[in-house]
């Protein structure tokens, strides 16, 4: 386990930027800013046009930390407190879950909740609760990391 500093202001600013990006994507393209939908549209593209804008959004996302590094001189922290097998298994499970659940933290948790979509509210409560329970079991019952 690894302590991390409480950063309310940076996190609030980050959240507002995420919300601004979601708003702008709806304003310009009429689309929901969901990482799952954007990734799924890249894995199985419906058309060339559908592929292009998603690839551009992902390219922008990947440039995010580089811009932060350029502005602040520091790359954003990525601390991975779990083993590689856990990272791989967890990632694979996330891929299955978000495809069947049709969304993740950005699509359901931010965009869907902001539209007061009952589906997204149910989805968000479900995954937040399951993540909470999983972290408790992994760290405090099994004691693995």
């Amino acid at each position, binding site marked *: 386990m690894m*302590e*991390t500093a*409480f950063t309310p202001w*940076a996190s609030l*600013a*980050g*959240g*507002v*930027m*995420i*919300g601004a990006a*979601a*708003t*702008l994507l709806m304003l*310009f393209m009429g689309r929901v800013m969901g990482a799952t939908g954007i*990734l*799924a549209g890249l894995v*199985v593209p419906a058309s060339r046009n559908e592929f*292009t804008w998603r690839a*551009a959004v992902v390219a*922008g*996302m*990947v*440039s*995010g*930390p580089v*811009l932060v590094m350029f502005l602040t001189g520091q*790359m954003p*922290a990525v*601390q*991975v407190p*779990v083993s590689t097998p856990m*990272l*791989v*298994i*967890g*990632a*694979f*499970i996330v*891929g*299955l*879950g*978000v*495809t069947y*659940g*049709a969304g*993740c933290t950005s699509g359901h948790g931010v965009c869907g*909740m902001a*539209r007061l*979509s*009952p*589906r997204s509210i*149910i*989805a968000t409560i479900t995954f937040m609760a*399951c*993540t*909470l*329970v*999983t*972290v408790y079991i992994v760290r405090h019952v099994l004691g693995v990391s």
Partner: protein
Amino acid sequence: MRILAAYLIGLIFGVGISIGGMANPAKVLNFFDVAGTWDPSLIFVMGGALITTFIGYKLVFGRSAPIMEDSFQVPANRTIDLKLVGGSAVFGIGWGIAGFCPGGALPALGTGRWEVIVFVLALLAGIFLAKFIQSMGARSAA
């Protein structure tokens, strides 16, 4: 123009994820570790994003159409079924094990860290398998 707009929107999202702490699995897992090394920061990310999007969408939906498309494409599915709840539950379990969610991992790729590349490859494998099973199911039902 479309590509530039999409790139800049992705960039704002990526910077937001980076400074908010969502690209850092240690911080994400600590948010959920109420009984241990709890770090409540992510409630500010979620809250800030949710309130901004709620207000932003209210303003945007006052328009008849988006700027670069003919119409808004908002998910129309209203059914709350086992697929939604089960899928979300499975996502939560994976998120709790690995610490990255898709929206956090994609911007984190920009740090060039190998752990993120490993996560995204395994994530894509999971998405691909689920899509494959879904298409098989759709074919056998047809």
